[in-house]
């Protein structure tokens, strides 16, 4: 067995792990976060929300199915560093076109393997997400630590412009076009427009810098804000855009970062979670139906909104519609007009899944209904769609 080069990893608080180089050699910094999904590493790696984050995989074996051409969620790997315990030596899947190690090297992503990822995860759980550095060139942890402490913090970071599309583009509707959606790309995953398009939506994906006029120019039936990296509190332009759209009466749907910005637009604050939610096994209750869905999460920040009462805003009555059963974190917001009609909603988690369970796919239908104005008529059925076939 050829021994790989050694690598070290140093956390902001000085804790050091030694392992072997995995992926590209070099040095990298970012916010250390752990993801508990057992499948879907390819989707995770290519999810723009992980920009500037060093992702620790709690599943020990990573890379078993290699990398294929169908599963990426964007055109590149976004994580700034990758921490695994036992990387696969061979890919095994009929769809695989290259190995994970090769893909990381090709894209210059520095990783480390062979570390006690569970010890690292427990450390992050107890002490919270923090900055980290991985290096295959530095051998002195103290010197690496100094550089970790100089690296950028996630809190206060506005990263949308780094991940957004430069040019707007259109994902055509599959079958008959029923709706036009203006989707602001704050780090959008490929599966989101795909799921919209499957429901007859023509999706105009616009850069994060799009203005209200640019949004209205596509004559949308609804506005969508995607997931994405960074601190929602550091974002103002898109919040103002959203407020403008709400005033204009445009139905809105947001996912993840789009939920946080919706919260801010409605006047709620946001805060950083100690160590975030990153996994594909999180129980969320849809408080409008009482049903529990198992969902994909990837968020380090959350909306601070009251769980027990609704809040009157200039746009209508805002309510927490979804909540994480593990820790009562706000997982969804909805806005109703004076007649109690739903006008806008958003979720903190990922109904587009990829990776993750498909339990929340109904939210895309809800968006279609919202734009179609026929929500009330369908809502009775929607609450039981899960049960058809029984």
């Amino acid at each position, binding site marked *: 067995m050829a021994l790989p080069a050694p690598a070290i990893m140093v956390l902001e608080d000085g804790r050091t792990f030694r392992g072997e180089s995995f992926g590209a050699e070099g040095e990298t910094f970012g916010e250390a976060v752990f993801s508990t999904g057992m499948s*879907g590493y390819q989707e995770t790696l290519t999810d723009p929300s992980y920009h500037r984050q060093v992702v620790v995989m709690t599943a*020990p074996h990573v890379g078993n199915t290699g990398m294929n051409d169908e599963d990426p969620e964007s055109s590149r790997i976004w994580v700034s560093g990758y921490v695994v315990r036992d990387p696969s030596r061979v890919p095994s899947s*009929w769809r695989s076109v290259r190995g994970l190690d090769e893909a990381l090297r090709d894209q210059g992503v520095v990783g480390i393997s062979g570390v006690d990822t569970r010890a690292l995860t*427990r450390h992050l759980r107890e002490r919270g997400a923090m900055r980290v550095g991985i290096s295959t060139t530095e051998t002195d942890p103290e010197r690496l630590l100094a550089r970790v402490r100089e690296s950028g913090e996630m809190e206060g970071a506005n990263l949308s412009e780094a991940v957004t599309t430069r040019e707007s583009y259109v994902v055509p509707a599959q079958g008959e076009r029923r709706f036009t959606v203006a989707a602001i790309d704050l780090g959008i995953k490929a599966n989101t427009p795909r799921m919209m398009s499957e429901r007859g939506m023509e999706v105009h994906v616009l850069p994060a810098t799009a203005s209200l006029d640019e949004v209205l120019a596509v004559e949308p039936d609804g506005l969508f804000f995607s997931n994405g990296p960074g601190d929602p509190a550091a974002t103002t332009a898109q919040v103002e855009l959203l407020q403008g759209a709400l005033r204009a009466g445009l139905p809105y749907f947001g996912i993840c970062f789009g939920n946080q910005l919706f919260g801010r637009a409605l006047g709620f604050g946001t805060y950083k979670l100690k160590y975030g939610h990153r996994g594909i*096994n999180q129980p969320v209750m849809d408080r409008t139906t009482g049903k*529990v869905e*198992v969902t994909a999460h990837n968020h380090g920040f959350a909306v601070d909104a009251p769980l027990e009462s609704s809040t009157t805003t200039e746009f209508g009555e805002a309510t927490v519609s979804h909540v994480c059963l593990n820790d009562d974190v706000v997982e969804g917001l909805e806005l109703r007009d004076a007649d109690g009609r739903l006008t806008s909603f958003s979720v903190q988690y990922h109904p587009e899944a990829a990776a993750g369970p*498909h339990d929340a796919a109904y939210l895309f239908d809800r968006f279609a209904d919202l734009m179609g104005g026929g929500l009330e008529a369908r809502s009775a059925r929607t609450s039981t769609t*899960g049960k058809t076939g029984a």
Partner: protein
Amino acid sequence: MPKRTDIQSVLVIGSGPIIIGQACEFDYSGTQACRVLREEGLRVILVNSNPATIMTDPEFADATYVEPITPEYVEKVIAHERPDALLATLGGQTALNCAMALDRAGVLEKYGVELIGASIEAIERGENRQQFKKIVEQLGGESARSTICHSMDDLLAAADDLGYPMVVRPSFTMGGTGSGIAYDEADLRRIGGAGLAASPTTEVLLEESILGWKEYELEVMRDRMDNSVIVCSIENLDPMGVHTGDSITVAPAMTLTDREYQKMRDLAIGIIRAVGVDTGGCNIQYAVNPADGRLIVIEMNPRVSRSSALASKATGFPIAKIAAKVAIGYTLDEIRNDITQETPASFEPTLDYVVVKVPRFAFEKFPEADPTLTTHMKSVGEAMAIGRNFTEALQKALRSLESKHAPFDWHKEFVELDKDALLAEVATPHDGRLKKVMDAIRAGATPEEIHDATKIDPWFVDQLALINEVAVELIDAVELTPGLLRTAKRHGFSDEQIGKIRGLSADVVRGVRHALGIRPVYKTVDTCAAEFAAQTPYHYSSYDEETEVQPRAEGKEAVIILGSGPNRIGQGIEFDYSCVHASLALAEAGYETIMVNCNPETVSTDYDTSDRLYFEPLTLEDVLEIVHAEQLAGPVAGVVCQLGGQTPLGLAQGLADAGVPIVGTTPESIHLAEERGAFGRVLADAGLPAPKHGTATSYPQAQRIAHEIGYPVLVRPSYVLGGRGMEIVYDDGALEAYLEKYVANGLINERQPVLVDRFLDDAVEIDVDALFDGEELFLGGVMEHIEEAGIHSGDSSCALPPITLGREEVERIRRSTEAIARGLGVRGLLNIQFALASDVLYVLEANPRASRTVPFVSKATATPLAKAAARVMLGESIAELRTAGVLPAEGDGGHLPDGSPIAVKEAVMPFDRFKTADGRTVDALLGPEMRSTGEVMGFDSVFGTAFAKAQAAAYGSLPLSGRVFVSVANRDKRHMIFPVKQIADMGFEILATAGTAEVLRRNGVEATVVRKHSEGEGPDGEPTIVGRIWAREVDLVINTPHGSTSGGSPRADGYDIRTAAVSTDIPCITTIQGLGAAVQGLEAMRRGQIGVRSLQDWAALGAAAREGRDG
């Protein structure tokens, strides 16, 4: 939505005796269910015929019926108890089938009992292949192309359509009974014909072969609000073609992308919903074509299954417990996750470790059986291991099997390995294939060659190659460096494996390792990959960085209990029972209890049975490391080795040598009992007779002894359990063959000589379980075997209290038992086998440990023997336990009050599971080597009724009328006459072969002569007896073997008769004593009404009787 308020009492049906395909995982699930339902304030009524289960302990239910699980008996229970609901999804296929039968018979409707968990319709939709296939199709899924057949013509017609090879699956059988792969028409006729016979609906499914595809399982839970979660994904290392129970399986799935996994998940949730399992768990199996990913749904079990037990242990998500809660109305989000205590059960466990399960087989017990693995389950047990990576988990699992042939071994010289031969060998799945795969890799086979031969996924093949690379490094290294040692440990190599490779003893490797500070750490199974803190110390070892063992609470002392490892014939659930009881008793006595075991089917490996659980192999290395870790955590009073059978007993000396305190009987005393010479001196000192005997390590020595004491002799290797290798030998030729065989396979050597005993023909065998504290003896129970000496005690039926022994004989037994206990220095349990011949009480053997019969005795006498034993081992006296109320204030099991019920234990044999290479069932003969997998108890006020119940529980009821075939050996002819006459007087038609018929006629019993098998059909096509049995024209077979038994070759006639009876499910009595008992049973049944009574009611009657006696 909270608990339903309209259910006050629930009837739970267990799974009956342990059989292949249905083992103690259902004790685990049933025990959890009973516990949960009682916690919820419901009245729990339980029916289970298996006395070795924890669930049948009286404290686990309000009314415990140790009665046969047949519709007739369960109806009696329902009539008496009038439960509101019936929960049948936790007792395996047995419980499910019983519930279906009760429903069909209108019993549930008659008594207004609601079936909860899964409705009849859901069970039918899940199990009926046509309906199920339609459901899968409607969900957009695919099933294998198939055809349902109800006759041989259907089968042959379908074959033209589907093409060979094809899979044959009978409907409504458990553990894949009767299924197989047909490569040609002859196979189809044989397997399909048997399948039609095995299916209660005469239904067989033929389907396209998906041999070699990847195989997966998902465990799903659903509540009545339609919330569904996937508890666990399991991937089989052995591709399609091997029954999942016989496959090496891995959790979580290792080679699926998220897309493919989510497709399976969507289908699973769609299926559980469409089938309509509204409240509970089910298991769904899939196959994936490795070439293009085509996904096929194979089948579902609309109930808790063996895989559910594995999934529960693998994830920490207690499926049975939660299934019981959702069955009574809770929703998943209302149920707390016990492990985190802060999150709900409506989530999906995520693992940061790898779990590997490996099957354990018993082909050595059935040398005639074909060891090829097929879709028909043949394994008798399994071991599970957890590691931080696959290589670690796999190697731990292999050593957990406790077979020296199981772990990989690089000892073999390279030149011995013939790559092509090995590749040919691994193309057919069989026990031990993986080791051959490793040899092939070592012989230079490329990953492609391995995959082509075995269809094992390339990822797994690479993992095996990785293990081999580490081994080669160990072989080649000039020096065993710390880095190399650490790498080897990280990939699961044991000290023993490393030692073998480096030419060192395991002790030396351990010494080096400890000197370098290379020790395992202990991680926690927490359901959430460390996202939340775990409150439950459920640990596994890994060579990683950080340990999670917490310091012990101030003032607490720990006791480590070693479990019994994978189930095998001779060591099964009975030992787990004792370990669990010890844990409960010691927790009550104020100790912190720590369980070590590697069997996922058991109650002992439930995370809430003991204060701490280590899911680890039971080897000296692994146990020493646990002891070390726990000693760092706080004081350890000692290790209990006496309760888990031979496995922990075998570790006692090594642990003691390493300075670990052993509680209870010392290793020296254990050795005293095992070593023949030393034991002989103990007997001589006490003035007790033993059959003449000697020990030998070679044929000439053995022959000399045999001639001295006279044939027949009983021969067996020392230090074995379950009569492994035990045979009765009638002449020199057989003796020589015996020694040749066992010296060659290493069971007999200088350290483990063969024991040669005089065989006591016509003796009554007696089994005793007793407790000794150094001063006082507590006789737990005296069991009288129904079969004559020479049949292994585990396979023999027995009665307690003894039915033909007088008070004087029991007193002799008591005196002898006490003398042996004192002589050996027993502290705790002791099991002795006696033989009473010509009024001499011979001591056959003594085992200073918990025996297989401890749970039976405990239940029959309402005394918690194992609990008492655990406390005696830690220093309490029997007198103190009497005062504390653990043991009765006075008297013991040797002296039961008048009017005590009679308990009959009957063994359940697995003959129908094993076929010879040419497709015939193996011989159904009892002998000195134990071959039963399980047991049942019949309990009633008189022997005949108790025996009839035991028969009904084990094999289905004895017939009340019809034809009885009799053919007995010459030596049995005299004893046969009276019972056969009684049977004839009851109105049965007697069939007999010419010789037997003549004897019967002379004694006034009319018998119809039938042709022997060897005579062939008559000139006018008159059938032979074997033909008539196959034609189901016979209702009871009485056939005793002639001459020698399992060691020699039984007469061909007998073999064909018995296998025909076993194959057609016709009761078959093979001993003359069994015949006598059966007659009593038949009489009891014919007298009419056999009632049912709960253990609690029996105990109340007993208490009343004692008061009456005192008053």
